């Protein structure tokens, strides 16, 4: 069974045509991988489907805009993986 990070990395590689081996847990989806907001919608759709969750993109964006969070907290892939694990756990609780 692949890890959450592996699943996300595979989705990004396939959706955005980015070489899989260049996608690291420390990669920032926007700053390092150059993923824009429209491409991220495709990634979010694939993640929602793969994990049976609904990524709270609007909430995250609002928190970043309000200065309550940094983009690193949600868009560095190891952190995104952790957020997804939390959402999956909350769904099963």
């Amino acid at each position, binding site marked *: 069974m692949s890890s959450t990070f592996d699943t996300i990395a595979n989705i990004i590689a396939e959706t955005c045509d980015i070489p899989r081996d260049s996608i690291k847990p420390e990669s920032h989806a926007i700053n390092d991988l150059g993923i824009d907001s*429209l491409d991220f*919608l*495709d990634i*979010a759709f694939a993640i929602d489907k793969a994990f049976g969750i609904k990524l709270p*993109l609007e909430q995250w964006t609002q928190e970043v805009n309000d200065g309550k969070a940094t983009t690193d907290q949600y868009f560095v892939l190891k952190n995104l993986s952790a957020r997804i694990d939390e959402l999956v756990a909350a769904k099963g609780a």
Partner: protein
Amino acid sequence: MRLEYFQLIDRIVDINLADRKISTEATVPTTSTIFEGHFPGFPLMPGVLLIEAMAQTSGWLLVAVNRFERMPFLAAVKDAKLRTFVTPGQKVSISATLVHEGSGYAITKASIELDRKSVCDAAITFRIMDFPNSEMRDKMRETAALVGFSTEVPANG
């Protein structure tokens, strides 16, 4: 269709919020300056406007799903296939299904039929946002009334 107002939908036939589906219909006008260029001597409904008709149909579904509190904006069109010609005067049936409702975005699958034959289809992505201002929402409500959208329509949801 009122092409000059970019209103591609004549009438909402049905909105089913339980199944997250909508069907609409529209008749291509017999005359339009568009046909003078597309194409001289061989008037055809432009494919991009058929795609727009699918987007508008999907849009009304999303407006209903969001209870007229948020507005869908076209973001992406995928796998669009234009299978047959549509000509002036023809009446088409348009349908759309909400495939996924994400956070701030939604994806539909839409299609158009002519005499029960497939004309075109596509997967369409929308950003779902607050109305930019009250004027736009008011104007959208006016247009909604013109195409038969009412608060009673989604009652079967």
